[in-house]
């Protein structure tokens, strides 16, 4: 079905569309007219057509992948979907003997995604709270204050931070970050904020929601800050100059001239960071503690949607268990697709005019 759609704009719309669009495209019109003449000569129309179709197929495979993942996951999770329905994400089985909810019980096949949704939300949102101010600070420093000589290396460093695999972050978190939090940060949090019940001393391991959030924050920082930087660079210089000419200090210039103009794109960058945090698996699995429970304390063991899949899928006890895990994966897929699409649209709305950049 989609293939019918391509052949039309390719043949007809191409030469017409530049005439409609602005002056910037007029140069292209000449170019493509020359090229059109050269391409229509020759006797290789058949080979060209085959090549064109092949390339279109390659490009369409990207749509294919999305549809394929969606269909496969829906198909293999149908068992759990038929049994639990949408209440999989809202309701838990109440154990009649104890009166307590039994969220995740593979032996008796009672499954509910509540503790994992809760863990994913708590760890990702806390990570955003930690990462966003820092990321915007870095972006401000890099675009507005940094001496030119430092800009390149610092941008490189943040890029590198984004390319480190999550397993390495996890390894570092298990051996360095968690002991650090356990020995120095957690006791302080417990003694100062213990009265909020958000921090209690029940968990001596140092694992838990807070550790997961800290490592997530470190991981999503470079994504948020590099996109924020891109968006801030796209703000025209005349804006900055106008605000400075009115006598503003540099911070007032950044606040009124840059941040206000770039705010939609910054929100997009933050949402993109949220998308990464929601789906991040390995580092979270290694430090969140992996117990399917809900705790108010941020220092308690928990689990997240991706962590439970990584942990239990390979040795899932039965078809229903596997199906329930795949349903969690499907939910993760749909949510991240929506979140990422939203973020891309917001960033794109701001940087539309700016030239393409290699990531």
């Amino acid at each position, binding site marked *: 079905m989609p293939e019918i759609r391509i052949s039309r704009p390719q043949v007809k719309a191409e030469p017409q569309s530049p005439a409609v669009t602005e002056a910037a495209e007029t140069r292209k019109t000449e170019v493509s007219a020359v090229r059109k003449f050269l391409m229509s000569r020759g006797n290789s129309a058949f080979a060209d057509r085959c090549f064109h179709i092949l390339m279109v197929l390659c490009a369409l495979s990207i749509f294919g992948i999305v549809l*394929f993942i969606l269909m496969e996951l829906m198909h293999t999770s149908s068992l759990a979907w038929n049994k639990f329905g949408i209440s999989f994400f809202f309701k838990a089985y109440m154990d009649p003997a104890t009166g307590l909810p039994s969220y995740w019980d593979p032996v008796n096949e009672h499954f509910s995604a509540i503790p994992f949704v809760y863990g994913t939300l708590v760890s990702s949102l806390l990570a955003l709270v930690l990462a966003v101010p820092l990321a915007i600070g870095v972006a401000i*420093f890099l675009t507005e204050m940094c001496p030119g000589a430092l800009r390149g290396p610092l941008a490189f460093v943040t890029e590198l931070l984004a390319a480190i695999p999550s397993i390495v972050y996890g390894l570092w978190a298990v051996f360095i970050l968690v002991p650090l939090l356990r020995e120095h940060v957690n006791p302080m949090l417990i003694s100062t904020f213990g009265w909020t019940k958000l921090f209690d001393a029940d968990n001596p391991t140092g694992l838990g929601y807070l550790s997961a959030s800290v490592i997530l924050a470190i991981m999503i920082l470079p994504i948020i800050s590099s996109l924020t930087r891109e968006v801030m660079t796209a703000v025209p210089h005349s804006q900055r100059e106008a605000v400075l000419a009115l006598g503003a200090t540099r911070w007032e210039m*950044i606040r009124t001239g840059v941040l206000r103009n770039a705010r939609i794109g910054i929100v997009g960058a933050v949402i993109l960071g949220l998308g990464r945090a929601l*789906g991040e698996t390995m580092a979270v699995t290694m430090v969140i503690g992996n117990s399917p429970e809900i705790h108010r304390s941020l220092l308690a063991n928990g689990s997240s949607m991706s962590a439970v899949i990584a942990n239990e899928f390979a040795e899932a006890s039965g078809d229903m268990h596997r199906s329930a895990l795949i349903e969690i994966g499907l939910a993760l897929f749909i949510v991240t697709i929506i979140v990422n699409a939203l973020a891309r649209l917001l960033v794109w709305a701001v940087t539309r005019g700016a030239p393409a950049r290699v990531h």
Partner: protein
Amino acid sequence: MSVNQTSFRSKWRAFTDRMVTGLAILATLLVIAPLVAIFVYLILKGASSLNLAFFTQVPKPVGEVGGGMANAVVGSAVLLAIASLIGVPIGIGGGIYLAEFGRGTKLANSIRFTADVLNGVPSIVMGLAAYSLIVLPQGHFSALSGGVALGIMMIPTVCRTSEEMLLMVPNPIREAALGLGLPNWRAVLSITVKTASPGIITGCMLAFARVAGETAPLIFTALGNSFWSTSLNQPIAALPLQIYVYALSPYDDWHRLAWAGSLVLIALIVLAVSLVRYVTSRGVLKGAS
């Protein structure tokens, strides 16, 4: 009175300005600190246990000191070879379509958008998809399914980087090729793609390095294997998987190997990222425009 107020305000404004500058510098330092910490620990702990045995021996049984990750290194190579066979041709093809045929069309825009969105999909979901495509029908874990999962992940990245590299090729080069009477497919393949090939190759390397560190999609596709295996139909070891298992084990010697494995991964990635930066910043392709 009013003079006093003005000077207080201007002092306050200057103070806020300085404070924000300080905060921005502090934020930058705070961001760089974990990176420095990660690298320092990796080099300290990894370099001391990185030796020839790491690359030549298979893991020793629990309790025996020594051994290496030769099977995991080879396993990663096998998985990455399968992934590249799937991801690189399809990705470059998609990139060629976006840059050469579909410029400005709605289809190209929506494909570009979908590729960007697909890039943000968690890797564990790709693992689930490969599981239900290959492992479930076959009934056992296999190297092939792991390779397919990684290959699917490579496609959007390769596609977008190739497109961006191809867009850098100046138009006169394309027209010169067509003017000499080359058919379009030949002009694209031997002139445009060839001109952009340093960029495309580094783009592929970047995608390669990214999936080389992926663990989540392999846990229930390639599964891992503590013995020597190169069969595509059997579970196979992979470097990131082995690091995961070793990091959560209680043995110091295995922790040591996990650090060494991470150092190897990071070295690969730093190399790829610096290459990409070098090629794009040197403007190898921009020379002619």
